């Protein structure tokens, strides 16, 4: 007969998968399906328009601006990960002077990431303004306009959502007087989201700007 041992050591929170991060990954995988619909829409309209003998893309896209934007967003993933490494060594604020980059904590890295993400969204807005004013491509002007603004727009909204998350996370580091595991968890799941948005952009950039 097997009996359960009466002396069981309670398992700490770090000995099992973090529920918040598991939930975030499941949610992000469902977000992939959201973007799957957008990608499928784009490719459907593209194949229909090309079948009708229409040109694709039906606008002159600024590849140089988009490439710089993409590089900034890719680098922001690196700075975000540096923030995660900082929070994993329980370092919220910088150790030395502000220009001593290796001594940066979570706060400095995430503020930098925030501004890089902001640059991306503003750069995209700038491109949209020139498309609307100079080339008269709007969401209602053509099939191409619709799929272009819907795919880029929903991605831009995701970036904006990430920016809000960075602000809330930074706000929490100022609201709390001491470091908690919860802050580490929040920082890590926000970084998951940010990497996800970044990877989706690589797909979108290839789809919209490179595949003609």
């Amino acid at each position, binding site marked *: 007969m097997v009996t359960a041992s009466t002396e069981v050591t309670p398992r700490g929170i770090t000995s099992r998968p973090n529920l918040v991060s598991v939930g975030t990954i499941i949610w992000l995988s469902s977000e992939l399906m959201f973007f799957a619909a957008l990608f*499928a829409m784009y490719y459907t309209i593209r194949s229909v328009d090309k079948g009708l003998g229409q040109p694709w893309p039906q606008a002159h896209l600024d590849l140089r601006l988009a490439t710089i934007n993409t590089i900034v967003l890719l680098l922001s993933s690196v700075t975000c990960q540096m923030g995660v490494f900082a929070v994993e060594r329980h370092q919220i604020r910088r150790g030395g002077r502000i220009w001593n980059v290796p001594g940066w904590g979570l706060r400095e890295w995430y503020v930098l990431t925030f501004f890089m993400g902001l640059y991306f969204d503003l750069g995209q807005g700038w491109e949209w303004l020139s498309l609307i004013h100079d080339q008269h491509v709007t969401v209602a002007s053509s099939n191409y306009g619709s799929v272009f603004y819907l795919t880029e727009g929903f991605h831009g909204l995701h970036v904006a959502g990430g920016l809000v998350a960075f602000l809330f996370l930074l706000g929490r580091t100022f609201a709390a007087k001491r470091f908690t595991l*919860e802050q580490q968890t929040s920082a890590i799941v926000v970084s998951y989201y940010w990497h996800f948005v970044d990877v989706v952009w690589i797909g979108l950039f290839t789809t919209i700007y490179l595949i003609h």
Partner: protein
Amino acid sequence: MKVESYLFLGCATFFGASDVVYWYFSHDPTGTTALALAVCLAFLVGFYLLFTGRRLPERPEDNPDGEIDEGVGELGFFSPHSWWPLFVGLAAATAALGVAVGWWLFLIGMLATLLAVIGFVFEYYRGHYAH
């Protein structure tokens, strides 16, 4: 956590093979794209479980001789009760209604959503719970 990760990675492999066959027979960009992202969906979860499982000690679930009580201990933080999700929901509903009614209601709804989300995010960081 190997079994879970292999399940999801197996799904990813299956979707990948289906995708190639689908494209070969149909040349349909819509379904091919959707299937390609289904590969990513399964791969994301599978990779996460494999990667996380390597960093964690063996769980009682992974042990064929494991007992229920071996799983006792802290699970995480759970809010005992909170009114904020209700306010976030009401505020978001107001903003969504504003899209149909008019910009003035949308702006009010967005402002209310912002305030409710701030309350939600900082609920356990102020007042009695400040730490």
